[in-house]
């Protein structure tokens, strides 16, 4: 990497700001920033992330019923900062994969994931999202969502009770708390 830079910088000066190398410099800069900020500000930034987890409004299958129940008054996941975002997915940082992912849904799920800004987290909710569950031998169902998107927390159950989902989000918050800021 360093060699390339030296080679790159020597011949033409313009290339310093050319669009092709622009991303490299930005990421370098962000690396520096992360190193500088992680120690003093990491805790505060993570704290901010923990309490404003916004899930995308993407329902993949029947677990969405229990997700709806979890947002209801009895379980009230809003306590944990999870409000179902009925707006754009550009402001979301969490996908709760609510159940079975079929072959037709999989490209859409990935497309949604790719459009979300970093940092982003994925909760696989329900047995179907984890391994394919009851529909493991179906011709149209993926055996688990982790071949499509990287999963942070698995919430088992068919469907998981809202309490389980809440525990899953708490585990995710724990994970975020311990992770370095990106």
């Amino acid at each position, binding site marked *: 990497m360093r060699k390339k830079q030296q080679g790159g910088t020597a011949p033409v000066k313009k290339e310093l700001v050319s669009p092709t190398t622009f991303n490299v410099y930005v990421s370098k800069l962000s690396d520096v920033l992360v190193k500088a900020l992680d120690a003093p500000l990491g805790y505060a930034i993570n704290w901010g992330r923990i309490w404003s987890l916004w899930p995308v409004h993407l329902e993949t299958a029947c677990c969405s019923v229990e997700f709806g129940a979890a947002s209801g008054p009895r379980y009230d996941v809003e306590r944990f900062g999870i409000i179902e975002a009925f707006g754009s997915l550009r402001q979301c940082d969490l996908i709760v994969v609510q159940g079975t992912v079929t072959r037709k849904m999989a490209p859409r799920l990935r497309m949604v994931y790719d459009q979300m800004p970093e940092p982003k987290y994925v909760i696989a909710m329900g047995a179907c999202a984890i391994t394919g569950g009851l529909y493991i031998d179906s011709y*149209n169902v993926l055996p688990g969502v982790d071949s499509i998107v990287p999963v942070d927390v698995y919430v088992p159950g068919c469907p998981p009770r809202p309490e389980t989902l809440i525990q899953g989000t708490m585990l995710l918050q724990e994970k975020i708390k311990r992770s370095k800021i990106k």
Partner: protein
Amino acid sequence: MSDNKEEPKKPAAAPTKPSTAKTTAPAAKPTTPAAAKPPAPAAKPAAAAPPPKKEPEPPAFEKGLVDEIKKKFGDSIKTVFIRPRRIKIQVEPHDITEVATFLRDSMGLDHAESVTGTDYPKDGQIEVTYHLGSYSREDLGAHVLSLTTRTNRDDPKLPTLINVYKSVEYHERETFEMLGVYFEGHPRNERFLLPEDWADIPPLRKDFRIKGR
């Protein structure tokens, strides 16, 4: 199974099976991959007893309905069964539009509830059943008339009923997708429920096997 006459033939082919097969039936479960064939002869002898139970008294009202249809179309209508509130008649593919029009106009069967396609590889045929019901005639509210027809399995083509029953539009599209039956005259014989890149045979054909089974 729609042809009741054919079934008594098969038990004769396997007369010794019943006693042994019945005991092995629960044990056959672990060996599921092969299970599709062995239990079939086992059940056939049991079938010999119930059909007489159905035959003796076809209910009067339903019988009347079938007679009405038969009066119009004669022998081209084959009655498969007449049970309380359920009638199944079989017609040839070229007759189906005419029969359906008659059922709609003269008998008040105004909508199709669903369309079932069934694959019978042994007969080399695909059966398509239209479940017709009535909202406008009160005395027919409980009844479902199954209008069924069979087509060749290798080149399945049937005339569409979309001009008679608007409600079969998506059902026929689904049948095309799941069994590959081409409905002539249907505006959209195309992909519906399956993913766009589906490149296998229609999934509800019997020779389509699902994972691990």
